[in-house]
C-alpha cells in the first residue's frame, strides 16, 4: 500500500524551548485507519497541527499525497479534513451555513447534495437550520466532523473524536468512520479510549515525549506484545503457596480460591506445562481454568512506562 502521508525527520521546538516533537518519522498508508496513541502532552496534537498547517515545523519535511505541506500547501491541504480536539465552533451561524462555509473555504463549488448526505450520515439533518449555540456537545462534535467532510477530503484527522460523546453516539461515529474508510478515505485518529483504537485501527502508532515509540499492525502488535493470563479456579481454598512454586510468581486471589499466572506469548516457553506438573506434585488441584489476552490498554501502559 502506498503512503499518503510521509513525515520525515520532523522536529518541533516551541519558543519556550520545549521540544514537542523529536525527529519523528512516520508513514500513513493510503486507505488505512491509523490510531495515534500517547499520554497527554506526548506530541499528538502538535504532529497533527503541523501536518494540517496550523503550526510551523522547526525541522523536517512532510508530504501529503506527494505534495510538500510548505511549498505546495494548497494541494496538500485540500486533501485533508481536520476535526480538532477542542470544540471550536461558531455560535450564531446555522449548521447548514457553517458546513457550507467550510466547503467554500476549501475551494470547492457548492454541492447541496453532498452537504445533505454528510449531515444525514451524522444524524444532523433535522438540526440543519439550528444555530450551533443551541446544540449539545455531542452534536457540536458532529458538526465539526461535518465541516471536515464538507470538502470531500481524502484524509481525515480526528483528534480525540469521541471525547465527551456518549456510548451510543460513539458507536454511531465508529460506523461513520468505517463507512468513510470503505469509501477510500484515510483516517488518522488520536484517542484516549484505547478500546476505540482496538476496535477501529488497522495500525497503531505510539508517541511519547515527542518520539514515536512504535508503529505496528494492530493484530501483530497484540500478538507480539500481548501477554496472556492463566487463571486457575482451585478445588479448595489454600492459605499460601508452597516454596516449590515461588519462581512462577503466582498470585493468589479471591481469598485463596484462584491462582493467577501471567505468561509471555513471545517467550520460547510459556511455563504452563511445568506449572501444571508442579501444581500436581504440590497437591493443588483445580476444577476450571481460563486464559485471557492482555488488552491494548495494558500494552500501551507498558510501552509508555518503559519508554
Amino acid at each position, binding site marked *: 500500500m502506498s503512503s499518503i502521508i510521509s513525515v520525515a525527520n520532523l522536529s518541533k521546538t516551541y519558543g519556550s524551548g520545549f521540544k514537542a516533537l523529536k525527529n519523528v518519522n512516520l508513514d500513513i498508508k493510503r486507505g488505512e485507519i491509523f490510531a495515534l496513541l500517547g499520554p497527554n502532552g506526548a506530541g499528538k496534537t502538535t504532529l497533527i497541527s503541523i501536518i494540517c498547517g496550523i503550526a510551523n515545523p522547526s525541522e523536517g519535511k512532510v508530504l501529503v499525497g506527494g505534495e510538500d505541506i510548505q511549498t505546495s500547501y494548497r494541494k496538500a491541504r485540500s486533501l485533508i479534513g481536520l476535526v*480538532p480536539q477542542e470544540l471550536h465552533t461558531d455560535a450564531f451561524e446555522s449548521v447548514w451555513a457553517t458546513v457550507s*462555509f467550510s466547503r467554500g473555504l476549501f475551494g470547492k463549488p457548492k454541492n447541496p447534495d453532498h452537504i445533505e448526505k454528510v449531515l444525514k450520515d451524522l444524524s444532523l439533518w433535522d438540526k440543519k437550520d439550528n444555530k450551533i449555540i443551541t446544540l449539545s456537545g455531542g452534536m457540536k462534535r458532529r458538526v465539526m466532523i461535518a465541516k471536515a467532510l464538507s470538502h470531500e477530503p481524502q484524509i481525515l484527522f480526528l483528534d480525540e473524536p469521541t471525547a465527551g460523546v456518549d456510548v451510543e453516539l460513539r458507536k454511531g461515529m465508529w460506523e461513520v468512520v468505517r463507512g468513510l474508510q470503505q469509501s477510500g478515505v484515510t483516517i488518522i485518529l488520536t484517542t484516549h479510549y484505547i478500546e476505540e483504537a482496538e476496535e477501529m485501527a488497522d495500525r497503531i502508532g505510539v508517541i511519547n515525549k515527542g518520539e514515536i515509540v512504535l508503529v505496528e499492525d494492530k493484530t501483530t502488535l497484540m500478538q507480539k506484545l500481548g501477554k496472556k493470563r492463566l487463571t486457575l479456579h482451585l478445588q479448595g481454598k489454600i492459605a499460601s503457596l508452597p516454596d516449590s512454586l515461588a519462581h512462577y510468581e503466582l498470585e493468589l486471589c479471591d481469598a485463596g480460591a484462584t491462582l493467577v499466572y501471567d505468561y509471555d506469548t513471545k517467550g520460547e516457553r510459556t511455563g504452563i506445562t511445568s506449572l501444571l506438573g508442579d501444581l500436581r506434585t504440590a497437591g493443588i488441584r483445580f476444577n476450571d481454568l481460563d486464559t485471557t489476552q492482555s488488552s491494548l490498554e495494558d500494552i500501551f501502559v507498558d510501552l509508555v512506562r518503559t519508554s
Partner: protein
Amino acid sequence: MNHRAIRAIYLFEMARTWRTLLQSIVSPVVSTSLYFVVFGAAIGSRISQVEGVSYGTFIVPGLIMLSVLTQSIANASFGIYFPKFTGTIYEILSAPISYFEIVLGYVGAAATKSIILGLIILATAGLFVPLHIHHPVWMLAFLVLTAVTFSLFGFIIGIWADGFEKLQMIPMLVVTPLTFLGGSFYSIDMLPAGWRTVALLNPVVYLISGFRWSFYEIADVSVSVSIGMTLAFLVICLVVIWWIFRTGYRLKN
C-alpha cells in the same frame, strides 16, 4: 487564487453584519444624527460659516470619516479576533488559502461594511443640511481608500489583541482622540499656530482634509499630500500584515 475561499470568508463576514444590523448600521447612524443635532444645530447656530460653507455642512465629511475610521477598525479587528477567540481560526489556517486571500476576505468585508455605512451617513446628512459634492469620484476614492486602509489597520489590531480589552484599547485611546482632534468639527486653520503644527502630525487630518476637499474644494492641506499620506499608511499596514503572516505572529506556533 482560491476565489471560492475569499467569497466564503467575505459572505460569512457580511452575514454577520446583517445578523447584527442594529449594532452594525443603525447605531452609527443614530449617533451621527446626534452629532448633527448637537454640533450642527446647537453649536452651529452660533457659528456663522467656516471657509464659506455653513457649519452644519462643513462637519459632514468629518462625521462620515469619523464613522468610517472607527467602523473599519471595529469590523476588521473583530472579524479576525473572534475566530481566534473561539478557536475556529484553525479552519482558516488549515485551508488551502494564501495569506493574501485571507486578508482579501476579511478586509474586503470590513471595508464594504464601512463604505455602505459612510454612504448611509451621507444620505442621513442630506436630511439635515443641503449637500453638494464637487468631486464625487474623488469622494468615493477617498472613502474606499480610507475604508480599506483602516480595515487593514483593524485587522492588525485583531491579530495583536489577546483579549477584548486590547481590542478596544487602540480604537478608544488612539483612534477616537486622533479623529476628534483631526479636524472633524473644525478647520485646523482655526487653531493657534503652535497647535496647528501639532495637528499636522495627526494622520487623520490628511484624510479628513482630502475628503472635505472632494465635497467643497476647501482643504487644510493640499490634496496630493492627503492622498500621499493615506497611501503611505496603507503601505505601512500592508507591510505589517505581510510580516505577521510571514512570522505567524499570534497566529501560528
